[in-house]
């Protein structure tokens, strides 16, 4: 183990026990977080590999790298793997698992065994998904639109559906654990108004996971029933209604976007105050906007269906509701930006990711205004405009937040610093690569290139070449952190308890924390983000000098 060097000094969650059983049967939320980290990193690189193949295929207008059917499987499995096996678990199951108990001042989550169970569910789901991929794959699109998925696709729709069905229960159980923990296990003095915004964001996320995911489970089950047992639910030739599927699917899958982005917003709300040495601007507005997003997020699903054949009047209602859900997002962006005002700002890697997040999320959000405008949506929906828009939210937003959070809390998780200059370089690489990949796609979409096209008219080639070029840069930016995080586990500079001079409870215990998180449960007498009371660290840790103590 890389952490063996530390054993002589102090017992902590990584060195209390060794051996495979101590990991696979652990109920420690911190160890489970690391199990999740390994799992989702694997899936991230599988999904990323599919993405690179897609981009390579689109380098030329003709379909020449892979067969059409292969291409259809690639974008389907890219979506399914990235959404259900990386993005949805990413921040909640890794950083949330690690931090929620510590941030509220608890020894563990409310149900440690259920927490382990939820990881096993994800692993079982993941194995089924991998089996599905290896033995032929699935080509229904991650959206499983009927009647294509139930009556026409010749691929492993049922297997993929079952995998996602099981992964959904993993997500539900994580949400359940967080809700109970946040309600019942806060340390003395940790009132609701003193909770870090990371906790508010995870609370809102958990509500969506609990209320939304069962609907997805039911919907996938109905798809499986129609396909396997020939029941008529969605297929019109069997008396079903294909639009019913879209309503049910988006009732979960729109809020699912908030499952992916809200935790990221929580991360950003921790990083910006820390590196600005200031309390967050408008604490309660930021906290309440998370809840507002969770509530309104359930009322906008049919904005995915403006050209699907819904009535004129329901389209108008869903359009106006979509604008309402944009307001709390706007509030967050303004408050993060205002937090920097008159701060004392340092530009460590987490802060670069947080600033990048604000920029990319703003662009993703603003282009959402285009899509919610009915007359525009008719033209740009199902084109690359939509592809660009949701990648700005889910990759530009959610993944930037995830990477920012990983750098911010890596000293706490591993007890080591990552190499700071390399971190900054990777953050800039990701930012540039991302924009080069996805900005041209907005233009492609408005010019009319439909999504999920294996071959395309030659006039779209220049923009596609730019996009493919960007994706290779982006790939470098994603591989770098994985390499230097691994490197730092052995060679990184030893981190002290609070290298950033940050305010949360998780920084008041050692790095890495003891198994019980705190030597004794703290009593909270201060407000969140009391940065005016905490001195900034004299020297910003750089972590490049290899130290072995």
């Amino acid at each position, binding site marked *: 183990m890389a952490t063996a060097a530390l054993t002589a000094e102090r017992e902590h969650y990584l060195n209390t026990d060794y051996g495979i059983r101590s990991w696979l049967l652990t109920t420690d939320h911190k160890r489970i977080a690391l199990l999740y980290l390994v799992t989702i990193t694997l899936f991230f690189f599988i999904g990323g590999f599919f993405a690179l193949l897609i981009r390579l295929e689109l380098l030329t207008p003709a379909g020449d790298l892979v067969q*059409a*059917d292969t291409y259809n499987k690639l974008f389907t499995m890219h979506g399914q793997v990235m959404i259900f096996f990386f993005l949805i678990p990413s921040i909640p199951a890794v950083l949330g698992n690690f931090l929620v108990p510590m941030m509220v001042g608890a020894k563990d989550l409310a149900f440690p065994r259920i927490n382990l169970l939820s990881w096993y569910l994800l692993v079982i789901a993941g194995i089924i998904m991998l089996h599905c991929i290896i033995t032929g794959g699935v080509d229904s699109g991650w959206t499983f*639109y009927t*009647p*294509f998925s139930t*009556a*026409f*696709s010749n691929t492993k729709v049922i297997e993929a559906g079952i995998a996602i069905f099981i992964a959904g229960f993993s997500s539900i159980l994580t949400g359940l654990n967080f809700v109970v923990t946040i309600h019942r296990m806060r340390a003395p003095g940790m009132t609701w108004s003193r909770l870090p915004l990371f906790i508010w964001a995870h609370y809102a996320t958990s509500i969506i996971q609990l209320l939304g995911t069962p609907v997805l489970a039911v919907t996938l089950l109905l798809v499986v029933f129609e396909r396997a047992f020939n029941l008529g639910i969605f297929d*019109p030739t069997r008396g079903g209604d*294909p639009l019913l599927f879209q309503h049910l699917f988006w009732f979960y899958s729109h809020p699912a976007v908030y499952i992916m982005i809200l935790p990221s917003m929580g991360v950003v709300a921790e990083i910006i105050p820390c590196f600005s*040495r*200031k*309390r967050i*601007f*408008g*604490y309660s*507005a930021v906290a309440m906007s998370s809840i507002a997003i969770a509530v309104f997020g359930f009322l906008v699903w049919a904005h995915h269906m403006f*050209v*699907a*054949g819904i009535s004129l009047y329901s389209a*108008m209602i869903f*359009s*106006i509701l979509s*604008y*309402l859900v*944009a307001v709390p997002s*706007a*509030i967050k962006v303004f*408050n993060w*930006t205002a937090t*920097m*005002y008159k*701060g*004392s*700002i340092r530009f460590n890697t987490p802060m670069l990711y947080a*600033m990048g997040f604000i*920029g990319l999320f*703003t*662009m993703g959000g*603003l*282009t959402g*205004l285009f899509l919610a*405008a*009915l*007359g*525009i*949506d*008719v*033209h740009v929906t*199902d*084109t690359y405009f939509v592809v660009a828009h949701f990648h700005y939210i889910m990759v530009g937003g959610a993944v930037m937040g995830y990477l920012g959070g990983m750098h911010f809390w890596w000293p706490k998780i591993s007890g080591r610093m990552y190499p700071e200059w390399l971190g900054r370089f990777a953050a800039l690489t990701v930012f540039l690569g991302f924009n080069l990949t996805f900005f041209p796609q907005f233009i492609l979409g*408005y010019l*009319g290139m*439909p*999504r*999920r*096209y*294996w071959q395309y008219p030659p006039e779209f080639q220049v923009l596609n070449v730019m996009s493919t070029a960007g994706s290779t840069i982006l790939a470098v930016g994603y591989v770098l952190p994985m390499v230097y995080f691994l490197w730092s586990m052995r060679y990184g500079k030893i981190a002290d308890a609070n290298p950033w001079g940050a305010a949360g409870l998780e920084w008041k215990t050692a790095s890495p924390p003891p198994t019980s998180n705190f030597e004794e449960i703290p009593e909270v007498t201060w407000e969140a983000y009391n*940065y*005016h009371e905490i001195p900034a660290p004299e020297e910003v840790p750089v972590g490049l000098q290899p130290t072995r103590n």
Partner: protein
Amino acid sequence: MAGNVDALYIFLVLLAGFMCVAIFTMIVVFAMRYRQRRGQQAEPIEGSVALEVTWSVAPLAIFMVIFLWGAIIYFQERTPPRGADEVYVVAKQWMWKLEHEQGQREINELHIPVGRDVKLIMTSQDVIHSFYVPAFRIKQDVLPGRYTTAWFHATKPGVYHLFCAEYCGTAHSGMIGQIVILEPAQYQAWLSGGLTSGSLAANGETIFQQLGCPTCHRFDTQGRGPNLTGIFGKPVQLEDGRTVIADENYIRESILSPAAKIVSGFKPIMPTFQGLVSEEQLTALVAYVKSLSPAPSGAKPAPGTKPQESKE
């Protein structure tokens, strides 16, 4: 229509560009101005209710303007003008079959004279497809088991892309075609060059006879089924007390599942024709039933006459 969409689009690009520049400038200015300096402390600021209210209400107001603007365009996009020329579209994996009212059939190509309102009445034979003409800024999903409609009004002759925009399987990206917009004279030449086997409604009448429909649907009041003359577009009183408008979807449903909506005063004795008629035959039958209802007077000048006021 394209002009309207682009106007709102350009407005949104300017608005989004302005907001991006404003926020990015603030981030960069704050980042430079307030970067950490020795001996300089951050100012503790709690927040500001006035600011919070401002930056909630102001965006909301702008959003409502965008909503209204977008909704008005959508209303126009979704409401075909009366008297538009009709084209029946049947989508299947992986081709577009298009049929004019006069009976010309085309595959993956649609010839239309410039300056005409064209209404598309579309259905799918298998999965969901989507009829997308980027140049006209129109897109409408094409569903199996029902009709959806879209319309356009081309102002410039030319050849425009037709794409399938809803993923439909292996050759989704090959399900493309072209809309050929011709000058009226060229259009007449194209019309006379093609082979037709009678108008769509005439074909529908033949099928109507072959299937034995007139046995019950007589053109008097003595039939066991309702007289179909003049019903199209009119409200129909149902046996269960409801009233429905006899549109394309109602006629379609009445052929495929006759028992679903029984006309008041009749018995549910009609057998289903599900599986007995193809999508093309269905569209012909629908066109025939529609032809039994005289078009509103003056609403439909013959092709080639003075175009109506431009919709663009």
